[in-house]
C-alpha cells in the first residue's frame, strides 16, 4: 500500500463532508426517493458509514477497504447523477459536491460553478426579446430558466416533456428552444431529430442542456443540427448569451425567408403574366435580372408579325362550333410552338389571327431575321396542319403573314387586376394594313424589315400601299425563299 494513512484520513474527511447534505436530504420524509434510486442512495450512505467507521483505523486491510469504499461512493453518486431526471432536485443538488470530493474527472467544474462574485463582468449586449421554449422535465429547472430569461424581457414558454414541446412547436412561433437532453419519454435528442425533419421547424435554433457526462450525446446532437449547448448547472450569463445568439440567428433566418417569399411572389406574378406569351428562356431571363422586374413602358424597335387565316370568318359560319374550336386549337397550338421556338413574344390571339413581336422584351441583333425564319416555318407547317385537317374531314386553311419593323411602346399595359405585356404604336397599324393585302400562303414584309435582313432571302416584286394616317406609301415585298 502506498496510500498513507494520513492521506486516506484526509480523503475520508472530505468525502464525509461532501456526503453530509445528501444524508440530510435523504432523511427528510418529505422528499420521496423512488426505486431503484432509493437503493442507490441507501448504498451510498451505507458506504459513507463504513468510511466513518474505518477512517481512524490503522489496519492495512482497512486502509485498502477505504479505497474500495471511495470507489463505491463515487459509483453510486454517478449512478444517481445519471438518473437525476428521476430524482428530486434537492437530491440532485447534493451530488456534484460528492463527485467533486472524489475528484471524478468528468464532473461539472463548469461555468455553473462560478459564484456570483466571480461572474464575468460581461454586460449582456442588448438583444431583442424573443420567444423561448424551455423544455425540461424538472419543474425547478423550468422555473429557473423562466426567471433568468424573463429578466431580459424574453417570453418564456415551458414544456415538461418532449411530447409537449413538439405539440407547442406545432402551433407557436418560437425563436429559440432550450432543450434538456435527458427526459423520460421523448428525449432531447429525439425532439431535435423531429425538429430537423420538419421543414417548418428546421431553422429554429436549439440549445441543448445536459450534464457533463453526456458529452458524447451532446456532440451527436450538435452533429444532428443543434446550434449550441449548455452544461448543468448553467451560468446565467452564459445562458443569456446563448439565447441572444440564438435569437439573432433566428431573426436573420426570418428576414431571409421573408425576402425569399417576396421573390417567389414576384416570380409567380411574372410567370403568370408572361408565361403564356413569352418563351421560357425569356421569362427566366427577366427573372434573373433585377431590373427585369420593372417592365415599364419603353420605346423600342421591334419586328411585328401578324397572321390570319384567309376567309376563316366565313368558314367558321359553316362549321359546327366544336369543329371550329378543333381547327383553331390545332392551328394556333402549332403556331405558338413555332413562334416561341424563334423567341417571339406572342402579344395576342384574335380569333384566327396571331400578333407576335420579335425584339421585346429582349432585344437581339437578329430580331427581323428570326421573324422571317419564323414566318417561313409557320407557312411550312401549314402543309402538315392541312394534312391532319383533311384526315379529320376538316377544311383546308390558308394563312397570310405580314412582317413590319418599327418603333413601338412596349410594357405592362392594363390595370392592376388585368395587365399584360403589350405593344402600342403606329408600326402596329402599318403591320395590320400589310396583313390585309397579304395573300393566302404569302409572307409579306415591309421595306423596313427587309433593311434589317441579311442578304440570304430572295424577295419578289415590290408593291406599294397606302396606309391611313401617313402620307408616304408603304413599300412591301413577298418573301420567296431562302438562298442556301
Amino acid at each position, binding site marked *: 500500500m502506498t496510500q498513507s494513512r494520513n492521506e486516506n484520513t484526509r480523503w475520508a474527511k472530505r468525502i464525509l463532508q461532501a456526503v453530509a447534505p445528501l444524508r440530510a436530504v435523504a432523511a427528510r420524509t418529505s422528499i420521496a426517493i423512488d426505486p431503484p434510486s432509493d437503493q442507490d442512495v441507501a*448504498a451510498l450512505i451505507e458506504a459513507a458509514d463504513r468510511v466513518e467507521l474505518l477512517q481512524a483505523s490503522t489496519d492495512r486491510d482497512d486502509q485498502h477497504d477505504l479505497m*474500495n469504499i471511495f470507489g463505491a461512493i463515487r459509483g*453510486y453518486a454517478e449512478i444517481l447523477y445519471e438518473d437525476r431526471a428521476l430524482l428530486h432536485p434537492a437530491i440532485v443538488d447534493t451530488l456534484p459536491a460528492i463527485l467533486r470530493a472524489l475528484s471524478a474527472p468528468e464532473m461539472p467544474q463548469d461555468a455553473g460553478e462560478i459564484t456570483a462574485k466571480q461572474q464575468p463582468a460581461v454586460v449582456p449586449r442588448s438583444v431583442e426579446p424573443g420567444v423561448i421554449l424551455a423544455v425540461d422535465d424538472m419543474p425547478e429547472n423550468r422555473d429557473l430558466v423562466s426567471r433568468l430569461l424573463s429578466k431580459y424581457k424574453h417570453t418564456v414558454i415551458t414544456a415538461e416533456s418532449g411530447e409537449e414541446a413538439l405539440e407547442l412547436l406545432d402551433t407557436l412561433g418560437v425563436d429559440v428552444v432550450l432543450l434538456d437532453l435527458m427526459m423520460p419519454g421523448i428525449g432531447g435528442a429525439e425532439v431535435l431529430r423531429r425538429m430537423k425533419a420538419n421543414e417548418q421547424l428546421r431553422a429554429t435554433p436549439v440549445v441543448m442542456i445536459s450534464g457533463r457526462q453526456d458529452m458524447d450525446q451532446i456532440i451527436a446532437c450538435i452533429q444532428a443540427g443543434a446550434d449550441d449547448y449548455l452544461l448543468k448547472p448553467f451560468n446565467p450569463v452564459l445562458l443569456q448569451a446563448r439565447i441572444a445568439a440564438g435569437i439573432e440567428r433566428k431573426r436573420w433566418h426570418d428576414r431571409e425567408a421573408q425576402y425569399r417569399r417576396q421573390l417567389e411572389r414576384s416570380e409567380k406574378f411574372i410567370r403568370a403574366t408572361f408565361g403564356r406569351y413569352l418563351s421560357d428562356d425569356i421569362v427566366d431571363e427577366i427573372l434573373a435580372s433585377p431590373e427585369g422586374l420593372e417592365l415599364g413602358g419603353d420605346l423600342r424597335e421591334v419586328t411585328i408579325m401578324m397572321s390570319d387565316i384567309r376567309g376563316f370568318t366565313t368558314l367558321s359560319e359553316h362549321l359546327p362550333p366544336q369543329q371550329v374550336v378543333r381547327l383553331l386549337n390545332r392551328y394556333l397550338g402549332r403556331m405558338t410552338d413555332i413562334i416561341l421556338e424563334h423567341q417571339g413574344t406572342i402579344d395576342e390571339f384574335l380569333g384566327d389571327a396571331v400578333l407576335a413581336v420579335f425584339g421585346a422584351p429582349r432585344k437581339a441583333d437578329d430580331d427581323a431575321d428570326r421573324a422571317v425564319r419564323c414566318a417561313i416555318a409557320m407557312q411550312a407547317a401549314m402543309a402538315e396542319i392541312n394534312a391532319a385537317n383533311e384526315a379529320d374531314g376538316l377544311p383546308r386553311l390558308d394563312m397570310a403573314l405580314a412582317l413590319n419593323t418599327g418603333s413601338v411602346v412596349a410594357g405592362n399595359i392594363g390595370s392592376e387586376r388585368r395587365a399584360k405585356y403589350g405593344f402600342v404604336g403606329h408600326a402596329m397599324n402599318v403591320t395590320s394594313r400589310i396583313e390585309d393585302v397579304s395573300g393566302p400562303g404569302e409572307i409579306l414584309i415591309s421595306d423596313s424589315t427587309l433593311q434589317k435582313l441579311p442578304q440570304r432571302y430572295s424577295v419578289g416584286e415590290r408593291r406599294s400601299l397606302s396606309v391611313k394616317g401617313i402620307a408616304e406609301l408603304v413599300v412591301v415585298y413577298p418573301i420567296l425563299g431562302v438562298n442556301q
Partner: protein
Amino acid sequence: MSQAQGVVLLVEDNALNRDMLVRRLTRAGVAVICAGDGEAALTQMRAHLPALVLMDMNLPIKDGWTAVREARADETICHIPIIALTAHAMDTDRNSALEAGCDEYATKPIDFPELLNKIQRLVN
C-alpha cells in the same frame, strides 16, 4: 454488449464496491456473476466460461496475480480476457498486471465509461 455475448465475471472482495459495480454493469446491459476471492474466481471461470473477467488484484485466499497466472496456464480458460482492477495508477502495477497475463488494466476508483469501453473492446 448484449447478454447473448456471455456474462462477465467480477472478482472483488469488497462487498460495497462489488455491489456497486454489479449495479452499474447491469444498468449498462452487462450480465454479471461474482466471486469474492482468487480461488472462487478460477472455479467460476472453469464452470461458466465467462466472456471476460474483471479481477481485483488484491484478494484474500488467493490473490489476483496468482489467479491470473493459473488461469493462463489452464488450457480450458486461458483464452478468457482479464481486466485487472487495482488501486494505483502506477506503471509498475500496470506492468506487473500485464506481465501476469492480464489483457487490460483499470485503476480504482473506476472510471466507469472507460471500463465499459475496455470491456467492449476485449469482448468484440
